[in-house]
């Protein structure tokens, strides 16, 4: 009597054990984090991914055209120096090596804000599609960080003072909208600091200087 019952118990435990091992392994392998997202977040994520993929598709099409034009020029024995020059100009502008101009906005930040406020503002501008940004006359590239105690901030060894001018090139309406929406970054800065004042002005012509940072890596080597 005892023998069969024990076998059933063992079989059940073994079954459960196997199931748990698989579930645990899957949870660790998958690691997409998707199972932890709510339906609302997933919908938001889908919208984001769709926009991003459309963008990338456009980029791929642009590159395809560029490549085709290069190949045609080569086949015809023409010089494509012009294309090389325009490619160089675009990459240098985007990287911050050259000064840039265009429509955009000016954001005046007054009242001794924190370094984090400036960092959040720059992040919001990037998220809203800004193509070039400067803070206190310093071009913001990947490694440009504002630091220091509130009221005595500096950025790349330039003191920022109490009146900080942030310039951004991009669509003036979308940049302004992203900053000034309810609960947006302007509201957040003013909520955390009573003395802070933030003025956003759309502009037709904004000029952002070139970076003074050495962008050529000394330790990292290009990977073929």
């Amino acid at each position, binding site marked *: 009597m005892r023998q069969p019952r024990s076998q059933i118990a*063992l079989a059940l*435990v*073994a079954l459960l*054990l196997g199931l*748990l091992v698989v579930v*645990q392994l899957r*949870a660790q392998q998958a*690691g*997409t*984090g998707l*199972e*932890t997202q*709510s*339906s*609302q*977040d997933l919908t*938001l*994520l*889908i919208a*984001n*991914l*769709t926009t991003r*993929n459309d963008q*990338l*598709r*456009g*980029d*791929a099409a642009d*590159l*395809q055209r560029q*490549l085709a034009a290069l190949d045609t*020029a080569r086949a015809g024995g*023409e*010089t494509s*120096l012009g294309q*090389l*020059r325009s*490619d*160089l100009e675009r*990459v*240098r*502008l*985007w*990287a911050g*090596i*050259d*000064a*840039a*101009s*265009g429509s*955009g906005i000016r954001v005046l930040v007054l009242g001794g804000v924190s370094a984090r406020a400036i960092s959040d503002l720059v992040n919001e501008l*990037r998220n809203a599609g800004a193509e070039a940004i400067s803070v206190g006359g310093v071009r913001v590239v*990947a490694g440009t*960080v504002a630091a220091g105690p509130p009221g005595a901030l500096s950025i790349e060894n330039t003191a920022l003072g109490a009146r900080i001018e942030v310039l951004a*090139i*991009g669509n003036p309406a979308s940049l302004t909208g992203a900053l000034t929406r309810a609960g947006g970054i302007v509201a957040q800065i003013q909520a955390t600091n009573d003395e802070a004042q933030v003025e956003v002005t759309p502009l037709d012509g904004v000029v952002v200087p070139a970076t003074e940072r050495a962008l050529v*890596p000394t*330790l*990292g*080597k290009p990977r073929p």
Partner: protein
Amino acid sequence: MSSLAGRLRAIPTWQVTLFVALLALGFLVAAQARSEAPRVRYTTQERAPLVETVVGLQAQQDALKAQILDLRSRITASEEGTVGSTQQVRDLNAALLAARVAAGIVALEGPGIVLQLEDSQVSVPAGAAATDYRVSARDLQAVVEELWLAGAEAISINGERIVPTAAIVDIGGSVLVNSAYLAPPYQVAAIGPGDLYGVLAASPGFVDLVRARVDPFGIRISSAQPKTVTVPAYAGSVTLRYARPPAPSPTPAP
């Protein structure tokens, strides 16, 4: 039957097996429960198509990025073979490579560190905000900034290169970098000098981060110093729709 050996022999082997199996079961249940906290897992039926859509879109995105990287390398190869005054072409190509490296659209490898940030394993107390126990975009932004200040020259998060236009934003408990969806654990790879970790660990900003996030909420930060760190190329848009060279240009680009 009074001796220990005798008593042991009296226990049937199936009981021993069952005991061991149950012990393993207990461990697994505990491990499972721990790995669940503090994130809630949703298991409702209507989410399955949404998850499938996301997975599909992500696969599309990976393919598009691979296509872009491939097109870029073919353009570079084509440009290098451009006809014309050879010296002029050589100069232009050298300038292009330098600009691409500076822009972050070329992969780099070199010495450096990898920091890993993971969600807390502490179960969220009643009334507390679950988001405090997860790695946020703010946490990653802080780590990236402290790495730049400590002397890093190139950074990526889960393979997304930090470029001049890179925004780091929260999305439902995970993070978007360069509009790409990233899930924890977050691995921040940085190329930099040998003392990068030492400088980082001693910096007031990093100490503040640990004090604010690791100590009270259990956000986990670990680091590794591999022989070489690889920071991948940015595979997104380098298209400008609003920015132009300032006119009139006093010195045209060489």
